[in-house]
């Protein structure tokens, strides 16, 4: 049985980092639609991949969380990215495979991946 011991090591590492950080409005927020429509369309692995990528890259100013149904169920999985001081960007028909590019180009690099945004959809 794997214990929570590894979590203690992770806590110690994070504790030293958290104290250096500002909490609040300077964070980039990634919200994944997690209502029935989103879940059925595959939102959970998308959120898990964002978590994985942010954790592996050690991005300290990014939070990944969930939101409900925003009313465009036909475009699920839907992901909203809020960069402080910028307009919200909505990515649609997301998949796990598309996550890496959004993290690299948009969240780290500051360039919106327009191939995946809702404005690029014509259906």
């Amino acid at each position: 049985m794997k214990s929570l011991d590894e979590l203690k090591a992770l806590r110690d590492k994070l504790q030293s980092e958290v104290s250096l950080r500002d909490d609040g409005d300077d964070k980039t927020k990634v919200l994944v639609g997690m209502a029935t429509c989103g879940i059925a369309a595959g939102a959970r692995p998308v959120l898990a991949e964002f978590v994985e990528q942010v954790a592996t890259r050690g991005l300290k100013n990014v939070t990944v969380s969930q939101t409900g149904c925003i009313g465009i169920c036909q475009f699920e999985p839907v992901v909203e990215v809020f960069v402080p001081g910028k307009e919200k960007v909505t990515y649609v028909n997301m998949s796990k495979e598309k996550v890496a590019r959004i993290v690299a180009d948009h969240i780290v690099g500051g360039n919106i991946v327009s191939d995946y945004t809702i404005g690029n959809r014509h259906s």
Partner: protein
Amino acid sequence: MQELSLNILDIAENSVRAGAALVRIVVRAFPTEDMLSVSIEDDGSGMDEETAKGAADPFYTTRTTRKVGLGLPYFKMNAELTGGAFAIESSAGHGTKVTATFGLGHIDRAPLGDMGQTMSLLAGANPEMDFVYELCAGAEPADSADGSGGFVFDTREVKQVLDGVPISEPEVMAYMASHIDENTKELISAYKI
């Protein structure tokens, strides 16, 4: 939905919206009865009798934004397709318990799937709430001393270890997912859950 863990996530989201403080998810396999039982219990706002009765009807909803609600009906249908049953117990102001049973070996039963992802998402996205997940087989309690009977995950224990580090930290969420996955895969494969 291709995994029961997705149905479970979907139903637990109802508990989030019901303002629950604690959500308890129990998955129990009964190999001799060829049954799998899944329950999601919360201490949220609950429903009155009439609302609870209507909740599994796809065209019943208390929402005004849209006329359908598919989460509970979908879970109910999945259970009944495998020869199982579905029940909602609820009381206004006290919480709700949703229980579904499935034919454990039934060909139409979806596999349990990735409960690590489901629990880590629920815990990380709702840091002010607590979640318990128990996976067990037979009538043994999940927290039997030698750990052979099952597995228990409790965010209250996780938060105690974290000592102020937010449970929503992506690295903590990734840890929880793999912690649950590694500790349950043997049980899942032994009982084909």
